[in-house]
């Protein structure tokens, strides 16, 4: 784990040493526009995801076949996700060292992977069974759980993403061993 943290820190320091990284961070308009675009595309991506998940839970647009909602909203959702992901990478690139050692960023990263796996399983299960329940107002139990889990995971991603801005557990502070380990703080 220590070796991995060391490797990540060296990579972050290498990024930080690049002129474009500090240039982006220090550009008031560019950095803020990238961050604004990140939040605005979150509205597109997460907004579409909310509608799809609420349909699966039987809470919205129950008179429209579930597969139709999922298929038709998938394109704008993925456009939103792609721009959100690119702007997210740029935000990381602008502040690589602090972000690499942020416990919130690390939790967010794990939640993102979990949300991705859940989405993949959800689509696989939906495609396997959708012909039997497509017009039902509520999806089968397994898919409802997956939709609920999706909402919970993305709520976690948004919350931890927001918490990255706070320095409560930054490495320069006195943290418990567990926090310092999870944040990947390295001894000076």
């Amino acid at each position, binding site marked *: 784990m220590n070796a991995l943290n060391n490797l990540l820190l060296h990579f972050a320091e290498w990024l930080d040493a690049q002129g474009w990284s500090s240039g982006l961070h220090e550009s008031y308009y560019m950095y803020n526009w990238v961050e604004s675009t990140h939040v605005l595309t979150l*509205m597109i991506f997460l907004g579409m995801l909310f*509608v799809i998940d609420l349909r699966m839970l039987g809470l919205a647009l129950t008179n429209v076949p579930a597969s139709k909602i999922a298929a*038709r909203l998938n394109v704008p959702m993925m456009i939103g996700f792609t721009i959100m992901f690119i702007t997210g990478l740029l935000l990381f690139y602008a502040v690589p060292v602090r972000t690499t050692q942020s416990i919130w960023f690390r939790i967010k990263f794990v939640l993102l992977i979990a949300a991705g796996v859940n989405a993949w399983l959800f689509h696989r299960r939906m495609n396997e069974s959708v012909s039997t329940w497509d017009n039902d107002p509520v999806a089968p139990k397994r898919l409802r759980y997956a939709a609920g889990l999706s909402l919970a995971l993305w709520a976690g991603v948004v919350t931890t993403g927001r918490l990255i801005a706070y320095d409560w557990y930054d490495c320069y502070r006195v943290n418990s061993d567990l926090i310092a380990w999870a944040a990947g703080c390295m001894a000076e």
Partner: protein
Amino acid sequence: MEFLPVFEWMETSALGQIGKTYGGVYAIGQSLHLMSLALLGGTVLVTDLRLLNVVLRDVPSDVVTNGAHRWFKVAVTMLIATGIFMAAAVAVRMYYSAFFFAKMTALATGIIFVFAVKRPLLKRPHAEIHPLALKAVAIASLLIWFSVAATGRWIGFS
């Protein structure tokens, strides 16, 4: 009319003090605000993109708009509630922020537009409404809610 005393009162109120004192609670309020903004974005986009014939073209537009409006109301209520909580903790700073007043203007415009123009129009059978009117309403709605989100984000930078 002088609004500064109102903002000063908000900051010293119990709500303002909770947000000021407990950073974790304030951050969760911010996250809920973002999630309600995302939900609002989803309902607005689904409605307006349907009216523009971009998504769900094979679903009647009144089915989509009626289904999405219910969750729009939930989103806007959450957005206002969490927004008041967030603003209360930094109310005096908000008083001096041009972006805050820009967002409030955009939000008020958005709410008036939805409940005084968009909904009354869309409650009628869509087949009876001129297609250009539906598209104009959708474009106006997208522009207004984009302004709400963009000006809101820039409050944090000002």
